[in-house]
């Protein structure tokens, strides 16, 4: 299918969307599906059929709308006199008739309405998620109807590979998987690397506890990911791509598989993409639940069919990756930024965010916060804006204590940093990392020792067992944390814990071990008293204080 034909589809799709008088979008991402969105959609469809509204009302499944805790979410777009959008929360199948009846009157159903004129919606800036909640993730045609593949066509027909890389460099985009490595630099390195073949890998092995950004992108807008990969492949000269997707995301697996089939059928993937001479094929590889396979060298080993264990770098995958060929590995969110950058230009993207951290970042808000869900904000948004304005603060009048960012590799940020802009540098300065975008908010009922113990247990069970410090060190650190949590540890134990933190950080082979001590280090830095208050003092037998020595 050549660019002209795709444009024709886009116009036809836009026209057919416009002919409906009303549009009802039901969120069909994992969060809403788990609270019954499928049944709501079925009920709406049945209602439309019963009332004979097929020609005026469109019911469609869309991706994530954001406030996952209020699901199932339904957005109704009515065209009565003026156009308007209403968002309904916690919709049940029984509400279907009510919603359908309200369409022609244009009257809102007050008890279901989710007020969208609140910071949760107004403060966000959608780039990666611009289509999420609007486009039907199961429909190639609908993606085209939302200007999908425009960027890819622009790249393939109007730009040389080097121009594409230039735009990405200009955009200032940095890797969203956690490391924050400049994406443009990585692309140009792989483009320059010599190899008879090159590969693009999309790292979708999202494994941080409490993080679900990549899942949302893959479930809500799978074609965007494929488009981003196809542009990357063109820029670096790769002919094959792999999406390393965790098997725990069945909906994402299903949608991406369907998307690849559809894209191949419409020749936006495969041989001779869009009538050009460029070939690019994408395959999915399912992860078997190992967190360490998010580490790039372990991920490559896993795709090759080996045990998912990291190897020392250098050589970096950019020089010698999959089967020894130059390989570009980017995270889902990074690749989902690409269509926007190519379409709008690197400068437009670079105008969002701060000087060193450009663009937007998707965060998964979880924990003790009013609005849990998925948000996308410009880099440099203040931490307090994210937690209190967008997140709605701590529920039940609780008091904010800390926010954990970056998952098991990250740290806990206490309240003195609430005025801090959220970007790569500031987070690192505060002793944490940006990570992939998980934000777990904690109130004053959370014990920091328990948090550290939880993450250490995670690292301990996810360590691959290859290098000694990570394999044994995490077990020792976990045991010490347990001892502290049980009020059985002494000052010596705390000192040993700190020594192990330093050793494991500096001697482990890969990122998992090198960052495993971070949750302990950061909580010790800001909440040391919580550790010390649980220690058994020397000369103290655990319960009774010893009487002072009596002089004879």
């Amino acid at each position, binding site marked *: 299918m050549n660019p002209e034909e795709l444009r024709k589809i886009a116009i036809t799709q836009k026209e057919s969307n416009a002919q409906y008088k009303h549009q009802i979008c039901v969120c069909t991402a994992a969060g809403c599906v788990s609270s019954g969105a499928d049944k709501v959609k079925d009920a709406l469809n049945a209602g439309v059929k019963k009332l004979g509204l097929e020609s005026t009302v469109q019911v469609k499944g869309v991706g994530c709308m954001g406030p996952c805790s209020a699901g199932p979410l339904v957005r109704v777009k009515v065209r009565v006199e003026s156009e308007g959008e209403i968002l309904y929360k916690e919709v049940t199948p029984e509400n279907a008739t009510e919603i359908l009846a309200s369409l022609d009157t244009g009257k809102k159903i007050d008890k279901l309405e989710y007020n969208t004129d609140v910071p949760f919606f107004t403060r966000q800036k959608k780039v990666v998620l611009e289509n999420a909640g609007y486009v039907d993730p199961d429909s190639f045609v609908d993606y085209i109807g939302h200007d999908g593949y425009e960027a890819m066509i622009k790249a393939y027909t109007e730009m040389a590979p080097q121009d594409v890389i230039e735009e990405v460099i200009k955009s200032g985009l940095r890797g969203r998987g956690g490391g924050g490595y400049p994406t443009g630099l990585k692309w140009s390195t792989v483009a320059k690397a010599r190899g008879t073949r090159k590969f693009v890998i999309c790292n979708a092995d999202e494994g941080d506890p409490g993080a679900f950004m990549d899942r949302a992108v893959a479930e809500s807008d799978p074609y965007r990911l494929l488009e981003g990969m196809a542009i990357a492949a063109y820029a670096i000269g790769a002919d094959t791509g792999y999406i390393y997707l965790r098997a725990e995301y069945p909906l994402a697996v299903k949608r991406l598989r369907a998307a690849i089939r559809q894209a191949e059928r419409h020749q936006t993937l495969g041989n001779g993409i869009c009538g050009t001479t460029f070939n690019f094929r994408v395959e999915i590889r399912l992860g078997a639940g190992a967190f360490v396979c998010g580490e790039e060298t372990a991920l490559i080993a896993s795709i090759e069919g080996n045990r998912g264990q990291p190897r*020392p770098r250098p050589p970096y995958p950019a020089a010698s990756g999959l089967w020894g060929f130059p390989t570009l590995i980017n995270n889902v969110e990074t690749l989902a930024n690409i269509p926007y950058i190519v379409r709008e230009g690197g400068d437009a993207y670079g105008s969002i965010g701060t000087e060193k951290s450009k663009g937007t970042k998707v965060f998964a808000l979880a924990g003790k916060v009013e609005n849990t869900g998925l948000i996308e904000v410009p880099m440099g948004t203040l931490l307090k804006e994210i937690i209190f304005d967008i997140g709605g603060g701590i529920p039940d009048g609780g008091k904010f204590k800390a926010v954990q960012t970056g998952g098991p590799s990250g740290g806990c940020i206490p309240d003195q940093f609430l005025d801090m802009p959220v970007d790569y540098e500031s987070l690192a300065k505060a002793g944490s990392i940006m990570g992939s975008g998980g934000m777990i908010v904690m109130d004053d009922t959370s014990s920091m020792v328990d948090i550290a113990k939880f993450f250490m247990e995670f690292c301990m069970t996810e360590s691959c067992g290859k290098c000694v410090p990570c394999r044994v060190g995490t077990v020792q650190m976990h045991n010490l944390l347990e001892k502290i949590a049980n009020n059985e540890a002494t000052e010596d134990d705390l000192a040993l814990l700190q020594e*192990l933190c330093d050793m494991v950080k500096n*001697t482990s*082979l890969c990122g998992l071990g090198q960052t495993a001590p971070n949750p302990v280090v950061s909580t010790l830095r800001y909440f040391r008293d919580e550790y010390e208050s649980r220690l058994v003092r020397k000369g103290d037998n655990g319960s009774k204080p010893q009487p002072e020595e009596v002089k004879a």
Partner: protein
Amino acid sequence: MSPMTAQVVTLKIDGQDVSAHENDSILTAAREHGVFIPTLCNLDGLTTLGACRLCLVEMAGSPKLLPACTTKVSEGMEVVTSSERIAKYRRMVIELLFAEGNHICAVCVSNGHCELQSMAQTVGMTHVSVPYLYPKRTVDASHERFTVDHNRCILCMRCVRVCDEIEGAHTWDVMGRGTAAKVITDMNQPWGTSDTCTSCGKCVHVCPTGSLFEKTASVSEMLKRRHFLPYLTMMREEVE
């Protein structure tokens, strides 16, 4: 890769100016010039792994410690192979290994000929400062000539590598994660029932501890002979 085109680079190891082939590792260059760097998982003739972390060295301009076995030399590189910090980390690695398994030297077939034991002396380990984990591990004596005692395994993967790379049988592999990781024969079948094992005994002789041993050996009697390995590699390279 051929010697015809291999470039020579000069670098500093512990202040000493040394030359090396550009494809050499820091470890190779250091050994060539008589600088000792402790290793456990590394063995001449097998591929490098970088797993034991004993050979970590400091390098000027790099905030991270780098494994000497897998890091290639480069022009102008300045390497420091021993410092107080490195010595401490090396000691801790050995302590962690002793605490991880069940290493009772006094009753071990390899007592006196054990690489882990002698490495403990080399790095100056006087005691184990972390609590012993006392794991419950198994012994497989189903093979007619050899025994594997997982209590003494330090997961250096030498058996896995020698079986795959030199013997070509790939009987050994690894299963499980973290401290639950263990070396297995075939698909975790008893060694004695293995269809792939050729009973060549290479794994036994490359094993640094008393984890793999010949059944005829009693306490302190298991001497390991490794001279076949560099010899085999050399002969194969010559044929190529």
